[in-house]
């Protein structure tokens, strides 16, 4: 197994792994490891990865623009009042994040990489929340149930 070290502070492991596998294939890109924000990450490649593919892996990792989603509650009352707060963390400088609520784009205002949106529902529904254009960013998808 080959190791490629890349210095980036934050990674979304699943998002970066998916991007690497999309670029190099699942047989070449095996995964990533991180050791805290002060140490380079490890990109693990198969022994068969060529020097060019190792370089390509480093480029993909350097372009990684992670987005982390969390929500304070997964169930809300469908009364138009009870509120779920979705918090977005995108640590890369100048990162922009647009969420998809269902199929609707919702830009998120970030301050120092952190932003949030509030969701209320007038009716019972299952509300999917994801990131628009998530490639090399995240694999997070949240579901808030309004009941």
């Amino acid at each position, binding site marked *: 197994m080959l190791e490629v070290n890349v210095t980036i502070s934050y990674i979304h492991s699943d998002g970066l792994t998916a991007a690497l596998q999309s670029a190099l294939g699942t047989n070449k890109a095996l995964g990533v490891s991180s050791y805290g924000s002060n140490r380079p990450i490890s990109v693990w490649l198969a022994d068969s990865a060529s020097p060019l593919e190792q370089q390509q892996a480093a480029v993909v990792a350097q372009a990684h623009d992670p987005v982390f989603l969390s929500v304070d509650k997964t169930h809300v009352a469908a009364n138009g009042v009870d509120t779920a707060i979705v918090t977005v963390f995108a640590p890369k400088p100048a990162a922009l994040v647009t969420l998809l609520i*269902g199929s609707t784009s919702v830009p998120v205002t970030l301050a120092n990489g952190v932003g949030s*949106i509030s969701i209320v529902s007038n*009716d019972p529904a299952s509300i999917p929340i994801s990131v628009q254009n998530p490639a090399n960013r995240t694999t997070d998808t949240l579901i808030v149930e*309004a009941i």
Partner: protein
Amino acid sequence: MPTTTINVSVSGQLVTISTNEGNALRQSKTAAGTNALDNLTMAQALAWIDANVTDLPSARTALKHLVKLILILRTDLDRTKSGL
């Protein structure tokens, strides 16, 4: 996984969700207006009928109230089931 389509309204950083079934319920309630039978207990509703249904026009009025209740209950049930 529910199959109902959600309608999303965005105002700044506040997102409000509704569904077609919920909108149908709200439209039904608006169209129905006030209903003398709303919020009555069983005994009160039966007493209301005794006191108010005395001829054909008043029976028609009572029947309308009853139909309003049934249709609103039906749309409310559709709304609830759509979120399951």
